[in-house]
């Protein structure tokens, strides 16, 4: 199953800016369910919807898709916590999801993107800017910066991954103290030294 360019751009422009809100909402109602997995499931559904032209309120659609992905994920568990099911049932699509916010998203899109790129690690950002803004191919970047092509590709991959994470956090809300990944890293970094 491929991902068409058109669908990918729709995801980036219309869907992903709402991801932080959907995540926050999932965390509230479904404490035990792994939000990361549900979000990935939801994107898989959004990319396989045959026709998106009928979706007028993308934000509400994203919420509903995430909710149904969460329920399916719970059903697949062999042992299901009763309160988890109850939580999911309480997980109503919030009222503000009914108000289309696509306009707002459009206006903030480039600004958000510029901010995310600016926060990449220095070397990764240099290569990413050459690739995305100057429009150089990876081969050309490798030649211009005297960097092996494989290294250029690794930096591009790293930038993609960090931007994916940035969308999950919501680029608008810095610092990103509340993101799930932080808690994970904190454990890894501090290894229980008592200061975390």
């Amino acid at each position, binding site marked *: 199953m491929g991902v068409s360019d058109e669908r990918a*751009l729709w995801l980036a422009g219309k869907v992903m800016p709402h991801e932080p809100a959907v995540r926050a909402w999932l965390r509230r109602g479904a404490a035990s369910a792994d939000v990361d997995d549900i979000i990935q499931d939801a994107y898989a559904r959004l990319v396989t919807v045959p026709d998106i032209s009928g979706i007028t309120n993308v934000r509400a659609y994203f919420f509903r898709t995430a909710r149904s992905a969460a329920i399916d994920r719970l059903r697949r568990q062999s042992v299901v916590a009763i309160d988890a099911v109850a939580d999911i049932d309480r997980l109503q699509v919030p009222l503000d999801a009914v108000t289309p916010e696509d306009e707002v998203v459009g206006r903030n899109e480039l600004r958000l993107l510029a901010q995310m790129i600016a926060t990449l690690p220095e070397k990764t950002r240099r290569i990413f800017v050459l690739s995305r803004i100057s429009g150089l191919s990876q081969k050309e970047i490798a030649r211009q910066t005297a960097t092996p092509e494989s290294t250029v590709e690794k930096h591009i991959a790293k930038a993609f991954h960090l931007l994916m994470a940035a969308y999950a956090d919501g680029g608008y809300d810095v610092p990103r103290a509340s993101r799930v*990944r932080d808690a994970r890293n904190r454990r890894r970094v501090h290894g229980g030294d008592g200061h975390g």
Partner: protein
Amino acid sequence: MHVTGEGFMAETGTAEAIDRQAAVWAARLDRAPLTEAEQQALDSWTADDPRHLGAYAKARAVALHSKRAAGLTAAPQVTVASQNEAPRMSRRALLAASIGVVSLGSAGLAAAYLRKFQRIDTARGETRSVTLDDGSVISLNTLSRIEVRFNQDVREVVLKFGEVLIDVATRRDRPFLIRAANATMTTQSGIFLVKRLDASPLQVTTLKGALQLVSDQDQVIPLSANQTLALGDGRIVSPSAGPTFLEADRAASLLAWRDGKLAFHDDTLNAAAIQFSRFRGAPIQFGGGEVGRLRITGLFEANDPAAFARAVAHSLNLRAEISSKRILLSQA
């Protein structure tokens, strides 16, 4: 209690690994069209698990959408008002030079922002303080260099070398980034001391407020007020050495340089000599290795190593030979 809790925990690492793998695929596709074998591998990977497909869709979305940043180059030219050449500072009088950086339209400017920056240096023995256009104040210790890149979205200061005290003005919509060595620090407000000397690890101290540090290895390390952290080569020096809390009276001595002083607290003469070597005056040398290992406590004029040597000689019962070329401390 959630019976399924453990199962979910086991999967959490996987979600990130899947995202990472999806980004690798997207980067590969960005380099050149996939070979037939690669295409098959990708197809079977995305068919394996809906989460793979979801992550890959998001990676492709980021890959294509980020090309829209090319539109940012159409942004108007950045003009950076040139900073008045500040005269060499006296130790006590710190000049508040003002840097005017013209704000740009909201088209953003990742590109322009890479090209234009304001560089600020200090010479040997000089300290200086500058006020940035957002109201943040940066004090530079001797032999330091920073680059300031501001735009409407992000405030960024790069410490190339030396030591700076950064008092960040609160701007909720405009994060403040501090880059040094391989680390990127993000904050909204606070006071931070960042030191990067040649062979030493990067030292970050939060005197007020909090920041989040991301190392080049993507480790995320939050620092709260009055914590200090040493990073060598982008990594924490040892796994057990996370941020530690600052002792109550340390902050004042860490900032003594702002008044043209050097503060020592049971430090060796060797360490003191290294600190004095960054300021003006003759180099301090020792007649015999054991002399350099003696310890000293006190507050001294940074640009007057001779006075330091005399004081040390007196209290440690050493002999000080002072000339304009060098200062020699040896056993009496």
